[in-house]
């Protein structure tokens, strides 16, 4: 039962084969049994989850159905959820119980989804391995000695380990797609502005975007239908007619032009990843797609551009964590400045501090033009590259991450190596484009490989169609990580 996809579970609920409360108990039991092993969840509130499940069952009994009614899911710790500890993976918010729901949480609640818990993540979403979390690292279900990727590592591992059929994530530079790839699940980062950022604890406001993580493209569509939509509380939310993201799932792919950027297949790509991605491309060819070569000449600048802009915004976004109104405050201090200094020194971890320092530096008087302004100009060039590429193709494909899951601690001491883990995903955020990752095979160590599909603006439905057709033809997405022998 725990192996059901979100869609299959939804169908079972509709057919009254099981109740939401039964499904919820099932996953809560698995979480209680297996979370000590994976560390996916940071906060649980079983009574609250059960209450939501009972409500969903009552609603279904009263004739209010809907595909997500009664489906249990997990929320990334970055989302504020009323009554839930909303920690963002940080000691700074280790005591913060949100008094309100993020738009994403509210929408999923309204659709009847049951919250199983809040997942672990890199602190304030800053990391690519889930090792910067104050709550300790998450382990990859495919190899407990390997990282699950990050920053949505808890959500990814929870879905991969079948502790939840779906989870919310956020993606600032690859934080949905890279962990999805490293744990063998699917993850979608929508076009910037499609999902409201209200209630999502900000890392880099101009890049942050929430999206679904699940086991199939079909499941992503179901979740995105609920998550997307205009929200007047977010000024960057786009006012567009509501759409069904699964409307094109069954369309054939004949004649679809797939662009392969030469830059995605250059140095630094692990052979095991390259061969799995090549095989996936071959599969698409056999589905009738055309392959076109495209170039993204400025993509090589995306990592440095990102590591100017994202820290700049973060340094300002994280200024509110000052110990004055909520969250952690140092127990002892001499005066106001001392309170600020100790609170932030003790409340933030080293990666967060590093980025605050970088961001503060690049915004400083005398450096602003050389770093921030120049990075903004390059950001436009990077976006322009995609516009030109999309003149020649319908979707762009390539690897999601240059490697499969690396070992815990392997890159933790070398931030630059860690940052390069997002080399294929960051440009998509800088351009504001939608991108998704689906499993497309395994490397020599048996670790999952992710295929990245990048669409043009607002082409989520098309990208999901592209992913779904692949999943009809292959079964990579159905492979489950080895189950612990005793079920624990």
């Amino acid at each position, binding site marked *: 039962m725990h192996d059901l996809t979100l869609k299959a579970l939804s169908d079972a609920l509709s057919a009254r084969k099981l109740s939401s409360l039964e499904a919820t108990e099932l996953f809560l039991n698995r979480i209680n049994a297996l979370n000590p092993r994976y560390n996916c969840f940071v906060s649980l509130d079983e009574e609250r989850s059960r209450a939501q499940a009972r409500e969903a069952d009552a609603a279904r009994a009263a004739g209010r159905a809907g595909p997500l009614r009664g489906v249990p899911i997990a929320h990334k710790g970055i*989302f*504020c959820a009323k009554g839930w500890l*909303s920690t*963002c993976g940080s000691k700074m*918010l280790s005591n*913060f119980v*949100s*008094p*309100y729901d*993020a738009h994403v949480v509210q929408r999923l609640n309204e659709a009847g989804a049951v919250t199983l818990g809040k997942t672990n993540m890199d602190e304030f979403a800053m990391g690519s391995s889930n090792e910067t979390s104050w709550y300790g690292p998450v382990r990859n279900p495919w190899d407990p000695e390997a990282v699950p990727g990050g920053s949505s590592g808890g959500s990814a591992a929870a879905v991969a380990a079948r502790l939840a059929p779906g989870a919310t994530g956020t993606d600032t530079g690859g934080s949905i797609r890279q962990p999805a790839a490293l744990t063998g699940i699917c993850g979608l980062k929508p076009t910037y502005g499609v999902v409201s*950022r*209200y*209630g*999502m*604890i*900000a890392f*880099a*406001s*101009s890049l942050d975007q929430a999206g679904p993580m699940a086991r199939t493209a079909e499941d992503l569509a179901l979740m995105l239908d609920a998550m997307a939509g205009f929200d*007047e*509380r*977010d*000024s*960057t939310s786009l006012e567009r007619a509501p759409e069904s993201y699964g409307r094109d799932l069954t369309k054939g792919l004949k004649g679809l032009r797939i662009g392969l950027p030469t830059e995605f297949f250059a140095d630094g790509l692990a052979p095991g990843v390259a061969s799995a991605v090549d095989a996936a491309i071959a599969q698409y060819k056999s589905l009738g797609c055309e392959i076109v070569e495209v170039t993204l000449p400025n993509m090589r600048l995306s990592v440095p551009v990102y590591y100017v802009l994202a820290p*700049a*915004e973060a*340094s*300002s976004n*994280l*200024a*509110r*964590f*000052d110990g*004055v*109104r*909520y*969250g952690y405050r140092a127990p002892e201090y001499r005066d*106001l400045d001392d309170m*600020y200094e100790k609170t932030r020194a003790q409340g933030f971890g080293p990666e967060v501090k590093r980025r605050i320092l970088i961001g*503060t530096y690049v*915004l*400083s*008087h005398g450096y*602003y033009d050389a770093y*921030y302004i120049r990075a903004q100009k390059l950001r436009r060039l990077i976006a322009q590259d995609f516009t030109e590429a999309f003149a020649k193709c319908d979707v762009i494909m390539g690897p999601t991450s240059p490697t499969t899951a690396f070992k815990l601690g392997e890159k933790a001491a070398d931030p630059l190596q860690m940052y390069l883990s997002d080399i294929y995903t960051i440009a998509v955020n800088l351009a504001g484009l939608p991108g998704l990752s689906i499993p497309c095979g395994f490397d020599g160590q048996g670790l999952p490989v992710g295929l990245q599909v990048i669409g043009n603006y607002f082409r989520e439905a098309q990208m999901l169609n592209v992913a779904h057709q692949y999943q009809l033809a292959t079964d990579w997405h159905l492979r489950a990580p080895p189950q612990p022998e005793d079920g624990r």
Partner: protein
Amino acid sequence: MKWETVIGLETHAQLNTRSKIFSGASTAFGASPNTQASAVDIALPGVLPVLNRAAVEKAIRFGLSVGATVNHRSIFARKNYFYPDLPKGYQISQFEVPVVAGGTVTIVVDGTEKTVRLTRAHLEEDAGKSLHEEFPDATGIDLNRAGTPLLEIVSEPDLRSSAEAVAYAKALHGLVRWIDICDGNMQEGSFRCDANVSVRPVGTDTLGTRCEIKNLNSFRFLERAIDYEVRRQIELIEDGGRVVQETRLYDPGRDETRSMRSKEDAHDYRYFPDPDLLPLEITPQWLESVRAVLPELPEAMRERFVAQHGVTAYDAAVLTGSRELADYFEAAARDARGPVGKLCANWIAGALSARLNEAGIDVGESRVTAAQLRRLVERIADSTVSGKIAKDVFEAMWNGEATGDDAADTIIAARGLVQISDSGALEKVADEVIAANAQQVADYRGGKEKAFNSLVGQVMKATRGKANPQQVTEILKRKLTG
């Protein structure tokens, strides 16, 4: 050496919108601490700002009123610094591209008109308040004010004395109230000024080093702070010292300014465009819709009063001191032709204003209504009462002796104050006065003009002031010279 003072003002006008600039919380003053602070105002994790269009419209009104450019596109920026009453750790303001650029304000000092250039006006949010006195060993934070919309109006360094600075601040204060964008309440901090002050030898073009005096919330403090600061800077330089660029605070108790922080300690605010807010776009349609409902501005109204009613320039300036006073005048003068409009102006600028000042009330609370005043003025114009008697009638109206639009008529009738213009009756009284005052008559005929006034006074006294003074003069002149 002769010194010239150079002053530029930065004025914060709190915009009188119902809700805050980036949240739906109320802006009402005086509520219990933190009861008007929403999730956005206290900067909970994950909250986002949404711009209040009403605040933008008020900024547009201002821009149009001072002949400025209202930028089609302006940018909100974050001004980053840590302070407990600044919940986000940054203030949302406008930096490189403000909503309003340029414009002018006209001031009059000692009868001379001067045009003060504005640099810009930009929208921003106010911070909360730190309460240091209420708690022993702790500071309280009240975030009710956090997020209140402000328009920061920056002048060029065109002001040359504290008197000019005060005249400018008053003109601005009058204007923001006139166009209904700010209540102008200085005690509550709705209108406050920072003064940038420097001195330089007369005849030089380069600016001296300036000091900024923060948070001056009365015209008197503005004047005294500048006067002190100018003296301080001149003495410092003349004693061989150098002015250090710094921020200073004015202490009204000791009437001096004190250093708050020097340039070296100045914050690097790390301004950058706020990624949570889109650029502010003001379409020509929006601009025109605001222009269409903009009230007639004081300057235009002054000119109209002079042309339409023959009001003196001085009275016109007094009448346009506030929207309410101008409205009162318009209600009283209405469709008046001939001298009535001008008389209304005289009475409002004179007796009424004096009475209002004395009572410390606004014209809106005047005990004599515009309609009542109009009736009284008509009775002067049609010679029912003299100007002098009218003063008594006005006082009686002020004291509530009669009600209704015809209160003046009621009082004139009840007190029997109708002017005596019957020449037969007046001739008789004049004859009696001449007969009874032989000495004065002789004096007048002997060339003492003063004696004539005494005789007029006698006639007025005999008629208890009701005689038409002009007629009395004519009759007496005729009888004494004839």
